[in-house]
C-alpha cells in the first residue's frame, strides 16, 4: 500500500515535470553543497594529517617559550637553546636517531644574474635525517665543514630551478649575504607542502656557518629530535624535558620556558582546525536545505489549492482525511528525497572534480551521504506536513464546489 502511494506520488509529480524540478532544485543545491564541502573538507583534513605524518611521527620538536604556537611561528622572548643543549641531548638521552639544532634566516640567494628570495636553515646532517629528506645529487656536509663553519650549502629543488635553470649547480657558488657558498648537494623535490609552504624553497647550511657569517650570534632557534622507536616517544619526551629543565635551571614546580612538541599534538591541533572549518561550511550549506524545504512547502500549498477539487472527489468517494494527508506528505517526501539523491550525485561529482583541482584526496564518507539523504527526507516531512494537513482538513462539499 505504501509503495503504491509512492508510485502514485511520483506519477503525480511527473505530471508537472518543470515545476517539480524547480521545486526540488533548492534541496538539490543544499545537499550537493553539504556533500561537496564535507567531502573536500575531509580530503583536506586527511591531506594535512598525511603531510604532518610524513614529517615522521617519531619526531619531537623543542622550541623556546610555552606551548605550541602553530606552524612556523614559535619565537618568543624565552632564552634560546645553544649548540651545547643539542649536544647534551644527543649524549645523555638514549634511543635517539638524530638530534638537529636549527636556526633560521631568510635572505636573497644570487647566482649570476638570477636572484631568489629564500629561507636559510642552519643545521647539521641530522636535519636531513629527522625530516626524511634525501639528496638528489651531491653529498652531505663533511665533518670538517660543520665544525669549522665553511661556506657550503645544500639547496632545494625550487632554488635550483630558479637560480640555475637547467644548469648543474654542484660545485657552483651562490651568494648569500654577499658571501659565496659552494653548492655541495641538491635535495629531491618534495612537492607542495601544507600551509602553502614550498618545502623545496630551501637552503641548508652548517649551523656554525649561519651563526658566524649570517646571524652574528650563537642562538639555536629549535632542536629537532628523531626517536629511533616510535613507541619510546613519550619516554624520550619526558627525558628531554627533565634534561632541559636541569640545563635551563628551572626550579622544581617552576614553569617550563620551553616546550617539546610532539607531532601527534601538532597533527590533532591542525586537523582539528580543518574539521571545525569543514563543519562551519557544511552548516552554512545546510541553511540552503532549509530554504529548499520552504520551497517545497510553497509548491505543496499551491498544489493543494490547485487540486482542491481532486481532494474533494477523493474525500467524497470515501478517502479518509489521513489517507489524503499521507498522499500529499508522500509527494513532498518523494520530492525532497529525489532532490536528495540528485544532490548527493551532484555533490559527489563536484567533490571529485574539486579534489582534482585542489589536489586533495577524494575521501568518501558514507555517513554524510546517508545523513544528507535522511535530512532531505526529513525536510520533506516537516515542510510537507502543513500543506498535507490542510488538504486533509478540507470539507468535501466545499472542495467539490471549488472552481
Amino acid at each position, binding site marked *: 500500500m505504501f509503495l503504491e502511494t509512492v508510485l502514485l506520488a511520483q506519477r503525480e509529480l511527473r505530471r508537472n515535470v518543470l515545476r517539480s524540478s524547480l521545486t526540488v532544485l533548492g534541496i538539490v543545491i543544499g545537499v550537493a553543497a553539504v556533500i561537496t564541502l564535507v567531502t573536500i573538507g575531509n580530503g583536506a583534513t586527511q591531506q594535512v594529517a598525511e603531510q604532518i605524518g610524513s614529517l615522521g611521527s617519531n619526531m619531537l620538536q623543542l622550541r623556546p617559550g610555552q606551548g605550541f604556537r602553530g606552524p612556523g611561528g614559535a619565537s618568543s622572548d624565552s632564552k634560546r637553546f645553544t649548540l651545547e643543549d643539542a649536544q647534551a641531548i644527543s649524549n645523555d638521552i638514549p634511543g635517539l636517531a638524530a638530534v638537529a639544532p636549527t636556526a633560521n634566516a631568510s635572505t636573497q640567494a644570487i647566482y649570476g644574474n638570477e636572484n631568489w628570495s629564500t629561507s636559510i636553515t642552519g643545521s647539521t646532517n641530522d636535519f636531513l635525517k629527522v625530516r626524511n629528506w634525501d639528496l638528489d645529487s651531491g653529498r652531505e656536509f663533511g665533518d670538517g665543514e660543520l665544525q669549522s663553519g665553511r661556506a657550503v650549502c645544500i639547496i632545494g629543488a625550487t632554488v635550483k630551478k630558479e637560480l640555475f635553470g637547467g644548469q648543474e649547480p654542484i660545485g657552483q657558488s651562490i651568494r648569500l649575504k654577499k658571501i659565496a657558498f659552494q653548492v655541495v648537494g641538491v635535495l629531491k623535490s618534495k612537492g607542495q607542502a601544507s600551509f602553502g609552504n614550498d618545502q623545496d624553497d630551501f637552503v641548508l647550511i652548517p649551523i656554525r656557518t649561519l651563526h658566524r657569517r649570517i646571524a652574528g650570534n650563537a642562538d639555536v632557534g629549535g632542536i629537532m629530535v628523531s626517536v629511533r622507536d616510535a613507541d619510546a616517544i613519550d619516554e624520550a619526551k619526558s627525558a628531554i624535558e627533565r634534561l632541559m629543565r636541569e640545563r635551563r635551571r628551572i626550579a622544581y614546580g617552576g614553569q617550563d620556558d620551553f616546550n617539546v612538541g610532539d607531532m601527534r599534538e601538532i597533527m590533532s591541533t591542525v586537523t582539528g582546525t580543518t574539521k571545525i572549518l569543514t563543519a562551519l561550511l557544511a552548516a552554512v550549506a545546510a541553511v540552503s536545505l532549509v530554504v529548499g524545504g520552504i520551497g517545497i512547502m510553497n509548491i505543496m500549498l499551491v498544489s493543494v489549492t490547485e487540486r482542491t477539487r481532486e481532494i474533494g*472527489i477523493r474525500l467524497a468517494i470515501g478517502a479518509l482525511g489521513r*489517507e489524503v494527508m499521507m498522499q500529499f506528505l508522500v509527494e513532498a517526501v518523494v520530492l525532497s528525497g529525489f532532490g536528495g539523491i540528485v544532490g548527493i550525485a551532484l555533490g559527489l561529482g563536484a567533490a571529485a572534480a574539486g579534489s582534482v583541482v585542489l589536489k586533495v584526496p577524494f575521501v568518501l564518507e558514507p555517513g554524510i551521504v546517508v545523513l544528507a539523504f535522511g535530512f532531505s527526507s526529513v525536510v520533506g516531512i516537516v515542510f510537507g506536513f502543513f500543506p498535507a494537513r490542510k488538504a486533509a482538513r478540507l470539507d468535501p462539499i466545499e472542495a467539490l464546489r471549488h472552481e
Partner: protein
Amino acid sequence: MNETPVSSNNNGAAANGAAANGALIRLQAVTKVYGTGIAAVEALKGIDLRIGQGEFVAIMGPSGSGKSTCMNILGCLDVPTAGTYFFQGRNVGRLTQDQRALLRREHLGFVFQGFNLLGRTSALENAELPLIYRGLPVKKRRVLAREALASVGLSGWETHTPAELSGGQQQRVAIARAIVTHPKVLLADEPTGNLDSERSREVMELLTALNRDRGITILMVTHEPDMAKYAARQVHFMDGLIDGRSTEGGA
C-alpha cells in the same frame, strides 16, 4: 440487512408498516441550519423521507429549495443540525467523519454535474480510484475498473484521458467510477446538467438500466422534468420542505 428498531418512530411507521422497517434511507424531522444568530439560514426545515432499497428517486425543486443540502446529508457528506438520518439503520448523525467516509466508501457512489474526473488521468485510472481506498491489489482493481467501463459502454476507451472524451463519455466514466464498488446507493447531482438532450437520454437510460438490472438505489437531483420522468418517484423541494407534488415510494 442490519435493522435497528426505532421506537420513537411514531408518525411514519404506523402508516407505512413493513415498508418503513425495510427502508434503506430514513430521514426524520431533519433540519439544517447554516451560520449562527441573525445570519442563520435554515436550509432544511424538517424533512421526513424514506427511500427503500432499489428505488429510483428524482429530487426536484428550484435553486435554494434545500435539495442540494438534502443530497449532501443523504450522501453522508454532511450531518443534520437536528433530526435523524438512518442509513441501513445506522444513525449517520452520530458517526465520526472517518466513519462516514468509510460508509461512503462501502455503500455510496457519486455522480456529479461537472463529471469531476481527475484530469490527465486515464478513464481506467479514474474508474479504479474508489478501489484504491478499499485497498484492493492493482490487478483486481484493473479487472473491476474494466468491467465497470464495459458496463457503461466504454470498452476500448480505457486509456483516454477526460480531455480526449466527449461530455457524455466523461459522465459515463464518472458513472463507471461510482458503480465500480457495487454500491447500494448512487447519488447523482444533476448528472445531465452539462449534456445535450441526446447525451442526457443516453445517461438516463444507463442509470435506469443500472437501477433495473442491478437493483442500485438511485437518488438523482435534476431541474429537468424530462429527466425526472425516468425515475419511478419524484420528491419536490420548496423552501426547505418537501411539498405535496411528491410521489410516494413503492418499495
